């Protein structure tokens, strides 16, 4: 009985998940008159903006992730080694971006920067700091979990007593043991940036999600096809990341 129930729930969940996806796929890769076709997709992909805006988003994702890691790893390292009593405060602070709506963030930024550094917001890269703030709660949490999973203090001291300086200890001991946490953090940050629409439109930057939304207005079939492919792409990314994070270590030698 319970087995039947379990199977039923699984099937139901799979259906709920798959039906919209399959429908989008069918809608995106067929036309009422011609049947199965790649035409709408090819049409969208051949649009010169497709490449530009996809590239823009990938660049933003990369920069955001690197910036978030570069910002948070030293911070967390310091907190865990020197100021563990401040960790709860830092954690509470790290969720603040979640309670500030994107519109408020943009309006605040608009007011501040247009008055002080008018050129700043016209560059697409001005999105990076905003995205770093947006991804902060997720990246913080993933990295913090990674730090908590290792006995950081002992490992650092062991490395130090063996003669290693701080840089070597960071590169050879701390980072390798944070690899899984860094991958999770990167994955979350990359997917968040690749799907971020509100800030980009409000600040008038043409990113991939903006392209998807515009395509949706002119050619709904193309948008559906692209959306399905984007989802698959994200999945591939996800699997690649988790595979890399779980690379078996057994049998490795010096």
């Amino acid at each position, binding site marked *: 009985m319970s087995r039947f129930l379990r199977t039923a729930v699984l099937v139901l969940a799979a259906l709920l998940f798959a039906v919209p996806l399959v429908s989008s796929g069918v809608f995106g890769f067929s036309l009422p008159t011609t049947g199965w076709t790649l035409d709408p997709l090819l049409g969208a992909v051949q649009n010169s903006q497709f490449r530009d805006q996809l590239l823009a988003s990938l660049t933003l994702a990369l920069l955001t992730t690197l910036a978030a890691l570069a910002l948070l790893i030293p911070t967390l390292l310091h907190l865990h080694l020197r100021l563990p009593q401040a960790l709860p405060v830092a954690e509470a602070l790290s969720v603040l971006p979640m309670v500030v709506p994107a519109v408020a963030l943009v309006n605040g930024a608009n007011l501040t920067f247009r008055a002080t550094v008018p050129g700043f917001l016209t560059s697409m890269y001005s999105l990076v700091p905003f995205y770093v703030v947006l991804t902060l709660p997720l990246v913080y949490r993933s990295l913090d979990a990674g730090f908590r999973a*290792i*006995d950081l203090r*002992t*490992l650092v*001291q*062991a*490395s*130090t*007593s*063996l*003669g*290693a*300086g701080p840089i*070597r200890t960071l590169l*050879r*001991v701390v980072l*390798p*043991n944070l*690899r899984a946490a860094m991958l999770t953090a990167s994955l979350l940050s990359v997917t968040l940036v690749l799907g971020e629409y509100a800030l980009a439109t409000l600040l008038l930057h043409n990113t991939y999600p903006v392209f998807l939304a515009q395509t949706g207005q002119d050619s709904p079939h193309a948008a559906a096809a692209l959306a399905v492919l984007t989802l698959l792409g994200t999945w591939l990314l996800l699997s690649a990341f988790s595979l890399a994070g779980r690379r078996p*270590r*057994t*049998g*490795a*030698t*010096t």
Partner: protein
Amino acid sequence: MTSTPVQLQEVVKQFSGRTVLESIDLNVHGGELLALLGPSGCGKTTALRIIAGFERADAGRVLIGGRDVSRVPASRRGVGIVFQAYSLFPHLSAEQNVAYGLAVRGLPRRERRKRAGELLELVGLAEHGAKFPHQLSGGQQQRVALARAFAVEPSVLLLDEPLSALDAFVRQQLREEIRRVQREVGTTTVLVTHDQEEALSMADRVAVMHQGRFAQIGTPSEIYRTPASSFVASFVGVVNRVPATINSNGRVGVLGAELTTSSAHRGEATALLRPEDLQIQPDPEGRALVTGTTLRGAITSIEVTWQDTPVRVDVPTGTATRFSAGDRVRITPAVDNVLVEKEAAA
């Protein structure tokens, strides 16, 4: 012998206003294994961390090989450490762990592998070099940690309760193993422990710590046979506290016998007597009453009361069958110089 490998001179350490080390002095001799023994929280780890350079003394000096290292960072002190917690680098194999310090020193890869192999062999793990820490038992991990610490040929090896996470059998095995390796390599070693048996059985000298001071520093037998204070006597081994009176000639009346003491105290006092320093005979007229017996392996403890004072007497287990609860017995202290406490026994 050249200069003393490790010296602490009037080292003081406070944590947020609370004094943890009150001006301690310590000389660790070349090649010896010195145990820092004391109850939890007495400052053993703090003293060790000050030697290692992970903690800075508030006052006083730390000398390693005669050189003041108070301002030398931990990575330059040439001090090896084995921690209480498992501290192997989880992402490196046993061999890579041992080779880590050699890589820091810039040894070429082939020499690193060769040397790491030798060290793993020294700790009996030659076959396990390719294994990762999570594939090793707790005891094996601590052996690798030992090999890793020895690899960089430290001038001093510090062991902070390296065996406390292990079960009794493995602990016993590793005690002997550590001692053997330490003798073989000849590295000056400081072992922190709160286990008196571990300190007595492994160390050349024992430094008993109490509330941030050294209560006594001496060989295991000095510490055990001639404790400098009642704290040392009761922390190292078991003592009976028995009411006693000291007359003007310095003779101690205790358990109906008269003994000598070097104490200058006169009048009511408490005598400290080890269970194996008491002799016990069945005697229907005796003034002590057996209340029970406890088998402890090679010895058996006979618990008796002597005028309302509980006293424990240890006898070889083979002779213990002569005593059972309710028997009257005679107990006689057999010591030359009784240790006494000024306060009367409660």
